[in-house]
């Protein structure tokens, strides 16, 4: 049963050094506040899983939280490279980052297989691609009826999945809508699921067949209004496209990255603190 929990407590008690952790959200509903809290608490040696490692993973990787990354597309959407990700892969800074690389179809199926408690995902995929040459976790199985060869990859079964959603009710049932990505599968594939939410309401009033995650399937629900920033929550906030562009020069250089992280994340108490300091930075810029 998910109790309504402060984010700091949830991250501290549910995420351990060495865990496999998935923070999911497909452009929409990316759990940035939770990523910051992981950095603040100095979690180490994580195996990070995410279809589209973007700014949130650039920050986690640059701050040395990750030992390994399982992913299918790593970039700053609409802008270009993830400089911290590239620095880790190309130069081993701040330390070497092991990567396991899939396609989106592979990752999406691996989450489905994880949620379904299957050891592997079965898909038509990777044929003709060089990915199987560099990823020993892509194998092939034969259909016992037709003899056809199909791709098989291990399920994703994170120790912890973190997602952001629009609403929870007081019992900890969660409702999300709009672009859902792989969040439901990621949450159900995990041993422990943490959900940050825009607001806690008395009644969800979910439409028929909406995407609801029942409280008892979750480990913690944490109210963090705006906690997807600079990503967005449909019907609550807009994506801050400018921030994605601004991130490029900040992350390009190790020192400017570290200085930014220190000021905005390490030296702020929580997400509200981050928002306040970021506001100050933006105000200063625009003077």
């Amino acid at each position, binding site marked *: 049963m998910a109790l309504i929990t402060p984010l700091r407590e949830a991250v501290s008690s549910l995420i351990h050094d060495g865990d496999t952790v998935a923070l999911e959200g497909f452009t929409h509903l990316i759990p940035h506040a939770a990523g910051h809290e992981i950095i603040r608490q100095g979690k180490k040696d994580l195996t990070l899983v995410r279809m589209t490692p973007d700014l949130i993973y650039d920050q986690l990787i640059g701050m040395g939280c990750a030992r390994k990354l399982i992913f299918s597309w790593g970039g700053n959407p*609409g*802008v270009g490279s993830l400089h911290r*990700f590239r620095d880790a892969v190309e130069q081993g800074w701040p330390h070497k980052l092991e990567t396991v690389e899939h*396609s989106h*179809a592979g990752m999406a199926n691996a989450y489905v297989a994880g949620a379904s408690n299957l050891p592997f995902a079965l898909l038509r995929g990777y044929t003709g691609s*060089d990915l199987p040459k*560099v990823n020993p976790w892509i194998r092939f199985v034969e259909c016992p009826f037709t003899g056809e060869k199909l791709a098989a990859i291990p399920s994703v079964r994170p120790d912890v999945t973190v997602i952001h959603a629009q609403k929870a009710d007081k019992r900890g049932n969660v409702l999300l809508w709009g672009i*859902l*990505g792989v969040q439901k599968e990621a949450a159900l594939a995990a041993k422990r699921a943490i959900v940050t939410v825009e607001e806690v309401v008395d009644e969800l009033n979910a439409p028929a067949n909406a995407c609801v995650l029942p409280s008892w399937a979750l480990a913690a629900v944490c109210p963090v209004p705006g906690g997807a920033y600079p990503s967005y929550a449909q019907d609550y906030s807009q994506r801050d496209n400018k921030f994605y562009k601004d991130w490029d020069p900040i992350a390009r250089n190790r020192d400017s990255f570290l200085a930014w992280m220190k000021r905005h994340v390490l030296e702020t108490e929580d997400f509200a603190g981050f928002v306040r300091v970021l506001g100050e930075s933006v105000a200063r810029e625009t003077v």
Partner: protein
Amino acid sequence: MSELEFSATEIMTVAASRLLGNGTVCFVGIGLPSTAANLARLTHAPDVVLIYESGPIGAKPTVLPLSIGDGDLSLTADTVVSTPEIFRYWLQGGRIDVGFLGAAQIDRFANINTTVIGPYDAPKVRLPGAGGAPEIAAQAKEVFIVLKQNKKAFVEKLPFITSAGFLDGGDAREKAGIPGGGPTAVITDLGILTPDPVTRELTLTSIHPGVTVEQVKEATGWDLKIAADLKTTEIPDAAALTALRDLQARTAKAHGQNAGGEG
């Protein structure tokens, strides 16, 4: 209708858009493919069905999405399903007529690379990676690829095949058991390349007005074949250009920029 001046990117975009027939079900990548597909929707193909990997089916965005998960895609779609469902029921399910992709690099058999420049284990440049492309390239009934033509992009040998075109050419793709028909057009800022029906080697079959064959050869990292009956690409008509520019102006106003990516 009077003629307007147009840029190389504009003729590329309009040419790509023209290839999309009305009613086509199109799996759209962010960036140039999304621009071309939405232009088609706003001009000659109002019933084109746009599917984005983040989940929207039948998206009708009023401005170009900056990211694959923009709210506008969700709000204008006929329905929004999960990403696993997109890849399982809709793409792998064999329901996509056209996969519309961009690429960092391409070879003569329309294989594409979006993974690394240099060796995989010690890359010179780490590119974003596969995203949805390998399975889109494999499973859509046909594939259009849109990218700017130059020697860095059109290479003799890819350091990494992220997504299969025709592999080594001929019937290599079919032999590998790849279900979709593969790339049928590569639309660049210089012309349109289509695979030879037998060898599957990309051949320049249409050249944009004002571009010379020498220029195209110069921008290609292999000895590019030129079609005997090389056509000149129809110039963008004023209606299409106006629609494109309006779309981009609306987009700039909404987003402050006009790039895009997965994520």
